[in-house]
């Protein structure tokens, strides 16, 4: 049984190419997004349907995009990471403190911040996997510790004076009028898409998340994969934190925490589209900008800022309900076709 490269797919029954299956389900969110944008554009042509507004939509929430990308890695292997937002805040604060208070150069501060959050991710992973505690609890705890740590090292101040170079390379410099930070997020999305769908590593992440026993008995080092996934989400949260410091030009000890729920909403909503039933990078990408487009539009229509929470919270619940309904429908189909 050698693994040959002959192109001789046996038997028929394949029917349509795989990518054409379930088009409606896979692109439903894209259609809803388009309708949303068209609707708001018709309602507020002078403010919503402007290049500037779209540039803002893409540029302003790129930090959320980066954070959500990091989050879907452990979600794929079946672990939560509730410490991502605190980790982001921690990284942003480290950048500000070491630049402003200690006068470090830009690059070393970035490396330090990202190294710190990566280690925190690794610690999360080791405790979750080696001791065998629910990731939900471990990362809830470590996230809270980080919040305390941030308040401690910052004396609860907002630290201003982050270097112009960082600000330039996140918001000021633009390509097609959209801030650099969006393009970083786009590159990260591309990288993750490639890893998830075109590498053995990405498949193993999925196998571990779908059945730990099965993966283990198939010779996959489940422990190592899970630890690596949580470490990666720490690393990416650190990158998001650096970007956040650059976007604001300052670091404050609390505002970054509000990214937690939107990141989960984007990840779960993303799992209903493109590759329904899986956390996937392009789905998450679409979900982030769907959420932002909606919120921006509502705010332009005059809604108060509380509409953000309503929208994000609602989206998370609707996303989870939809995934469950889709899963049940697939289950029924499976039963029907197996019978």
């Amino acid at each position, binding site marked *: 049984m050698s693994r040959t490269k002959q192109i001789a797919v046996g*038997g028929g029954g394949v029917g349509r190419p795989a990518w054409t299956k379930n088009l409606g389900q896979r692109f439903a969110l894209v259609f809803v997004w388009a309708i949303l944008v068209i609707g708001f554009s018709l309602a507020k042509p002078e403010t919503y349907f402007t290049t500037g507004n779209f540039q803002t939509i893409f540029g302003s929430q790129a930090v959320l995009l980066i954070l959500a990308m990091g989050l879907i890695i452990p979600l794929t292997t079946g672990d939560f990471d509730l410490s991502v937002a605190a980790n982001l805040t921690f990284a942003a604060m480290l950048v500000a403190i070491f630049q402003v208070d200690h006068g470090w150069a830009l690059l070393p501060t970035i490396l330090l911040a990202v190294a710190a959050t990566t280690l925190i991710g690794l610690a999360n992973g080791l405790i979750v996997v080696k001791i065998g505690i629910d990731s939900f609890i471990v990362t809830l705890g470590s996230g809270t510790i980080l919040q305390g740590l941030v308040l401690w090292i910052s004396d609860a101040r907002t630290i201003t004076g982050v270097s112009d170079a960082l600000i330039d390379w996140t918001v000021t410099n633009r390509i097609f009028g959209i801030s650099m930070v969006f393009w970083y997020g786009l590159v990260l999305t591309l990288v993750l898409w490639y890893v998830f769908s075109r*590498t053995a590593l990405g498949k193993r992440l999925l196998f571990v998340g779908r059945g730990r026993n099965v993966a283990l008995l198939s010779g996959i080092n489940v422990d190592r994969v899970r630890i690596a996934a949580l470490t990666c989400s720490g690393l990416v949260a650190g990158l998001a934190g650096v970007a956040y410091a650059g976007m604001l030009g300052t670091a404050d000890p609390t505002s970054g925490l509000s990214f937690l729920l939107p990141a989960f909403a984007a990840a779960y909503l993303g799992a209903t589209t493109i590759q329904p039933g899986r956390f996937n990078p392009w789905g998450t990408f679409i979900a982030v900008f769907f959420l932002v487009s909606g919120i921006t539009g509502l705010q332009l229509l005059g809604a108060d800022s509380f509409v953000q929470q309503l929208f994000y919270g609602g989206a998370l619940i609707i996303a989870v309900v939809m995934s469950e309904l889709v899963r049940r429908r697939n289950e029924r189909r499976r039963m029907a076709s197996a019978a």
Partner: protein
Amino acid sequence: MSGIRKSFGGVHALRGVDLTVQPGEVHGLLGENGSGKSTLIKVLNGFHQPDEGSMELDGRPVELPLAPGRFQELGLSFVHQDLGLIRELTVLENLRIVELGSGKGLSVNWRRERARARELFAEYGLEHLEPDAALTSISETDAALLAIVRAVDAIGGGRGLLVLDEPTVFLPREGVSRLFEMVRGVAARGVSVLFVSHDIDEVLEVTDAVTVLRDGDVFGVARTAETDKDSLIEMIIGRQLAAAVPLRERDGRAAETVRARVSDLSGPRLRGIEFELRHGEILGVTGLMGSGFEDVPYSLFGAKPVRSGGLELDGRRIDLAGFAPGEALRSGIALVPSDRQRDGALLEVTVLDNLMMQVIGSYRPWRLDGRAMAARAGELLEEFDVRPRDPDALFGSLSGGNQQKVALAKWLEAEPGVLLLHEPTQGVDVGAREQIFDLLGRAAADGLAVMCASSDSEQLAQICDRVLIVARGEIVRELSGADLTKEEISKQVLQSVTLSEMERFQEELV
């Protein structure tokens, strides 16, 4: 109960079973796997709805199907193999779990409950049980006895029917005697006991009468005092299938070179297992439920922790303590687990991904060659005759037989030198079963060493070159040649428990 019939999609699991248990009688229920024992129990506890039949309890007719959960008020009570106790609770909480769970009454008078529990324990000779002790602190035997007391107490102590479903499987010998003592005590109060077991010696020891099921029918009823082990074995196995022909030609060629040698394999349920596995042979491992035989493949694969054990594979020595599945695969060992849904494959993932799971690293791991993978998957589906031949179908949408063929293809694709199987045809239809046997036979003919752990004697007789029988964690018999018939294997398995006991007894004498 009388005339109970039940069929599942055209398969008759019960074809008009009559069962009578006298008040105060301990009645044994015997039968092979698949003879209908479990289905009958599930009709009794209301899990299955019988197609036909009636039931009478304490002289009153009972309406079938029983509403689930209503059996206790009717005077029916069950103790299953897992005992239904919750480890995290105390003895007393476990004793009162039904009342606590039903939410009747808002508060519990724990002092009164404690006193009641002490009284109850005293009545059944369990004075040493402390109501507030954690369940984890009492012995397996005491836990089993507690489960029985709870079941008897739930039906009021002096009437009704107590069903004991393989309660002794996890007990040490001394615990079995204490359990029997309690069973007889319970029966003496007027409770009828239905004792379900695989173990004929136990049935002979504790019951007053026996009903034997075979193929969903009552094959015979006997007074225990008037029967013996051999006639019971004959009733259970029967003779009509004597002509089952082995599928494989056993030409003896296989018997020459040793592929793997297992030495001193000991674990939670295994003691000093030693055997050789030869090139091109299919070695069966079997035994009664709970004998530990099903642990053998998992222990050799590093999927179940063991205390000690050595594996010599192609001249290399491997320490089985601390062995992991990843290492096993790299050493050329593959395991097809029995529980496809939990351990074997991913239901919500495509057939292609399942097939490629272990070999995905060899398709350019950083730039996966999707085309080559699809092509190879297509070949495998063809070779293993999986229907439909669609690598993009979800694994869970396949029938049981096709799922198992995919599982087999998946593990053989790792090109192992040793293939371990556990119940390879469980939940597989007859046609696919023959195909799987055929595939295994061909793989063995190519030099693969196959070990198959199974409780299905017919299957073992059909495919194996040798069969090892495990009892209480030890190998007690090896069958080969003319002894490899379904009847002989079943008989040896049924006799294995006493065998292991006698041998230990002799050892102690020496």
